[in-house]
């Protein structure tokens, strides 16, 4: 194990700032396993309310795995298993008695590939709402309008709400997925490389949207693109895999700090584009 990557050496500073930070999610000593293969080791960090936290790192460093533990979607996709603790507003989301549907409603997710349902735009947006309540038609209309406006898609689709969600362009589909996630009023929005399948203009729209959404909720974004992390995030976590391919959190700090003068050589090399 390289010294700079060992958890003891990694610098996860508790930032002393004038503003008080409330952690929405608190990850404590998290390790992840796919079957018997360890993918992530001893990650401890906090996601602060109303902030955008970017997770960066080279391929295979476990950043996506980490993200998918935060709303427990990873275990649905594969045989992912965790050790350690993840608390949402102080409550353990891996508790046996937890209401999984509620966890996933509070912690929404945007996937790498836009994945709208084969339904109308309207039905896409209200899908999650209808899963746990039976609002009146007028209420649904209101939710659709505010969600689509928040996702900066309303003007493009307001005359075609009955059209299929699949007929939209890739960027519009991704914004539809964001609107769909916002419709259930999540507290946290997880974004797993949300722009990797989009062109630069669509990417720009999503990025400015992230800045806008930050006023209402907490965002965690996994990205391959360091410029994107620098542009949209307040905090950055740098993950890297050691020689046994086990991912670790190397450094976590304010984004400006990370990109200007990271404490770890490894982080400095990565943000300078020297590897990964």
């Amino acid at each position, binding site marked *: 194990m390289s010294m700079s990557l060992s958890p003891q050496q990694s610098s996860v500073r508790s930032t002393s700032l004038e503003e008080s930070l409330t952690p929405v999610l608190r990850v404590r000593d998290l390790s992840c396993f796919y079957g018997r293969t360890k993918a992530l080791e001893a990650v401890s960090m906090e996601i602060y309310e109303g902030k955008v936290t970017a997770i960066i790192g080279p391929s295979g460093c476990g950043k996506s795995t980490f993200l998918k533990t935060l709303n427990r979607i990873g275990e649905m996709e594969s045989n992912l298993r965790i050790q350690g603790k993840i608390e949402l507003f102080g409550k353990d989301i891996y508790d046996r008695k937890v209401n999984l549907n509620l966890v*996933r409603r509070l912690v929404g997710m945007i996937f790498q590939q836009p994945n709208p349902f084969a339904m109308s735009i309207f039905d896409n947006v209200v899908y999650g709402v209808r899963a746990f309540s039976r609002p009146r038609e007028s209420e649904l209309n209101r939710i659709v309008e505010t969600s689509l406006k928040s996702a900066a898609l309303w003007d493009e689709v307001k005359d075609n709400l009955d059209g299929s969600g699949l007929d939209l362009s890739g960027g519009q589909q991704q914004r539809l997925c964001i609107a769909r996630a916002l419709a259930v009023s999540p507290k946290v929005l997880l974004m797993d490389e949300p722009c990797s399948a989009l062109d630069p203009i669509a990417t720009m729209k999503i990025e400015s949207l992230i800045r806008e959404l930050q006023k209402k909720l907490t965002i965690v974004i996994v990205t391959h693109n360091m410029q994107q992390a620098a542009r949209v995030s307040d905090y950055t976590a740098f993950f890297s895999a050691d020689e046994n391919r086990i991912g670790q959190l190397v450094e976590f700090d304010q984004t400006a700090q990370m990109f200007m003068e990271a404490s770890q050589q490894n982080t400095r090399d990565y943000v300078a584009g020297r590897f990964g």
Partner: protein
Amino acid sequence: MSQLFDPLPLPKRIFNAALSAIAFSLAALALVPLFAMLWSIFTKGMPHLTGDVFTQLPAPAGMKDIVNGFANAVIGTLLMVAIGSGISLPLGILTAIFLSEFGKKTAFAEVMRFLISILSAAPSIVVGVFAYGVIVLPLKGFSAFAGGFALSIIMLPIVSLATEEALKLVPNSQRLASAALGAGLARTTSRVVLARAFPSILTTALLAIARAAGETAPLIFTALFSQNWLESVMGPSASLSVLIFNYANSPFIEQNNLAWAAAVILVGMVLFTNLLSRFVIRKRLQAW
């Protein structure tokens, strides 16, 4: 790069042409039985296909120059296929949903999958004898219901195996999207997975129906045959396939002719169902 336009050497061109010719003629050869069958059924059946066959009962053996038909057999086949579908479609689709969405790779699901594939390989005559044993004997009589039950056993594995394949084709990203919005497994399955797989499930159902409509062996022991109108679901019933079976090797030429006409109708029904399933899936895919 003038070589780009150089013709291939002669031996290669001859080899290419020969292989193409062989492949083409083998493909044509494989289609010969299908068209030969259709041709003989249509040429021998069409002359005897009158409006009467749909409205009249079969004439008593040996009677000439009286109206002759198999309306009761058409009704019997439709009714028994309907009964078979009524039993096998819900059961088979629910089984498939369990296997694909809930059971997945658990030992129980794997055993079930294996048993269903054994059932799909069960000879249809055995299915007929089984239905005879569990329905006809206890109820002390041949019946259209017993025939429908036997057909449902033929259809069940076809429906459940093909539906499971259809459900597996639904991209997992759709399930994840649904779960990430806080929807439970039941809602994800009914609103997203089933909705997406619906055209393929419909195709599956239609193919199973087409298969059941042509089955003869399960009906010989269960619905038997009847020269008369269907009186009750619990009474014996005529069917197109058993009518063909009985009348094709009858010594009376009228009955042989009627069997040919029935063959045209039966093949026509099966062909129509197959075409319908193709049409349905095309339409739906375009709608997406």
